[in-house]
């Protein structure tokens, strides 16, 4: 079986410049998890249905299992590893911890990044806005209730946000 050749691409991940040689059939998820060992991004299905692999591409949530790594060329990727500043959790991360929005935690990276994209765009979302924003991210543990509470707490409505 002939494997496709590699391409050299540049991209920014969590504010750092990367130049990587990547096979053109590799997904962004594989690049992050396997080549760069950024394993915070999770794989739950590999067919775009679960949302665990969500990262931000130029600030918008994308499913990294559905995106080829080469499509991220010259773009800016944010993964869960890029959110906390030094040891200080991002306010959304802190809200997830404080409000019991994390159980097994497998969905949390994707969920938190989806929430970040929502709040960056709409700092004071309604409950419906929140439910819609995370509707492509499955969580099997929490029933979503405490996730919604956490996102609201991190929003301007909950006096989080700035």
């Amino acid at each position: 079986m002939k494997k496709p050749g590699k391409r050299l691409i540049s991209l920014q991940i969590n504010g750092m410049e990367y130049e990587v040689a990547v096979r053109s059939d590799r997904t962004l998820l594989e690049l992050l998890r396997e080549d760069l060992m950024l394993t915070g991004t999770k794989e739950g299905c590999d067919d775009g249905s679960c949302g665990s692999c969500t990262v931000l591409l130029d600030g918008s949530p994308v499913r990294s299992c559905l995106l080829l790594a080469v499509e991220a060329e010259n773009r800016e990727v944010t993964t869960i590893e890029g959110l906390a500043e030094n040891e200080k959790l991002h306010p959304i991360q802190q809200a997830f911890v404080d409000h019991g929005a994390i159980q097994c935690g497998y969905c949390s990276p994707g969920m938190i990044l989806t929430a970040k994209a929502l709040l960056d765009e709409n700092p004071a979302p309604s409950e419906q806005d929140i439910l819609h924003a995370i509707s492509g991210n499955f969580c099997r543990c929490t029933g979503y209730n405490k996730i919604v509470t956490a996102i609201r707490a991190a929003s301007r409505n909950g006096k989080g946000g700035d």
Partner: protein
Amino acid sequence: MDELLHVGRSIPRKDGPIKATGRAKYTVDVALPGMLAGKVLRSPHPHARIVSIDTGKAARLPGVRAVVTAEDSLKIKHGFVETPRYPADQYPIAVDRVRHVGEDIAGVAAIDEETAEEALSLIEVEYELLPAVFDPEEAMRPDAPEIHPNNPKVDEPYRNIGGKTATSWGDTERAFAESYLVREDKFYCQMRAHGYMEPQATVAHFDYSGKLNVWTSSMGVFLKRAKLAKTLGIPHSSVRVLKTYVGGAFGGKIDLFHHEYIASLLSMKCHLPVKIVYSREEVFKAARPAQPLIVRIKTGVAKDGEILGQEIEAINDSGAYHGSGVVVIFLAWGFAMAPYRAPNLKYEGYSVYTNNLVRAPQRGHGAPKMRFAVESQFDMIAEELGMDPVEFRLRNVRKPGDILPNGDSVKKFGLSECIERVAERTDFRNRHEAGKRERETGATVKRGIGIGTTAYFGGSLIYPNSSSAIVKLNDDGSVSLLTGALDIGQGCETILCQIAAEELRMPVEEVQIYAADTETTPVDIGSWISGLTYVTGNAVKKAAGQAMEKLLAAAARELDADVEDLVARDKQIFVGHSPERKISYARAVAASIARDRGDSIIGEGHFRTMKDVPTHPSLASTKGRWTENYSSYAQVAEVEVDTETGAVKIVKVTTAHDCGFPVNPALVEGQIDGQVSMGQGHILSEELRVENGCVINPSFLEYKIPCSLEMVETDYIDVITEEYKRGHHYNTKEVGEGYVSGTVASVANAVFNATGVRMKKTPINPYDMLAELKRIRKEVS
């Protein structure tokens, strides 16, 4: 008594930050130098004899490092249950027959996944197809194809009855003869997937010291070690199972899974680490799904609603091997009899071999199915008697102190209080009457309300039966807690730290926990059978209590005071009546080491439930003690049924629960929310569809678990029946499994309340709902 500092409080979970930042290592994240990708070759046939396997071409493919088949194995069988009646019935790698689609036949380890995949395609297997059977009731016929010709027969002449539980008391015939009303109904529950977000995953590394190191997404490390050691034929001391974070399990990751065995065997062959991760499709098609159940119930009641007698038959399709089938038919009996009195009862449960996938327990393990059946029938009877469903339940509910037929006491059982309080909070009686009127109106969307209840056991005697814990005081007075418990998301690490901190009167943040490593942490019962907070929690309580005693003894000597006069707080020990006389924990530790010939301060604790009972109850006869603590809960669901589309929406579920004493109320709420959501999936949307033994909807696109847009509002009422006291063990009850049942049952009852449609099969899909609505309309007109 000192006020409680930490237990009973909603502190955020200790592993929150590491999970929120993506630094928590799950099994799928484990990467070791030289690690190979492993893949499993699975049977495409539901039943076949393996005539030959040729792995030659696969082994010669460049990049392949090892190939294994049954010939590389010791051919030692294992089983979820291994008793004289139910001996182990499953090889970890198929020997000469496959009995279900997806059964593991061979394993390959290669330098990457693609090479491993290609190698699989080069393995040549010749099969001789055998007749297969998929329906449990068909498989029960004497002439059905025989799936295990050489297994001992449990119920001659039925060849495929793999397990039977039978018990009775009183005289049901007479009870029915004396009854004012007798009903007989049959209910069906579907086959579901667990839907854990982290797929099955294992890394095995047999190193050059001869040790097999295993990281695996599981529910407890000690059971995995025991089963791997047994099937691989190596000592327990040669297997080390290490902690990883677990991305959900819900019952689906107990027992030995064959990829764990195959990864180990591959690594033992090539001495390199081997990682096997299932694709999601593989999870749906080859991992163990949950137990389906068919329940037939006949109930006789007096005119005032008193239950006089019940006959129950449960049929479980166990799939190709026992799996947990022989257990679920025992548990289903327990969930039938525990919450309500039935003075005369006859129960028969059958676990039947078919050529379907083997099953695992799933959250509730039989309770959602049994309670769905019983509680649906309760409402049908109440309706016929013209009684309110709440009154009917209160009439029959078990009271505190009741002794069950197996000798267990329900002790401070809170179910009647749960029922009363949930009914009051939801204005149930009025709204139930209003719901009945909805049936008559022409409204397109009808609103209804329903109730469902359950009792659940809290730990039982299954390997390894007990938990131990070690608490070490460090030089600076901080604490290290060693426990074999594995946190699967429920938050056990957090509550164990709360308990240690409570006993040691110190900040929770200063308790460091080291968990779930078979080599360095003590034995633990595991995160199943709903006994961890009770069993491991009490072991930690004893260990921390013992460490505290030693610390106080050292402090008393240093302060020249009596131990009884000492007060501890914030890592300082004071003399109560003269608080200026004090010593820090750090100095007390140092003093102990200096004065007591080097004794540092370490506490150990051990706990076993039902300590005077030798073993678990009989799965065949139900005789013997089952558990020490029965939780209970009553749930009310409010639903909307769209009579044009057949869609059911669950608006709100209110739960009144008696979990004894909530060590961390926020974590309890998390468990309730999660279970309401799982119950929602069970009753409305989730079903594995199977054709000729093969799952035909193997993705989240076709197997629908609840998403945020269907989020159900939840409300909770705590019914607290136990206390946490110093110097005693405490009684917590189950909290993580049984709520599923109340949700399933209450929604079914609410749907009936709103529409008059009684669904006896789950899930209630819009298609069936519309058909039933139409049928009713025809009957009326």
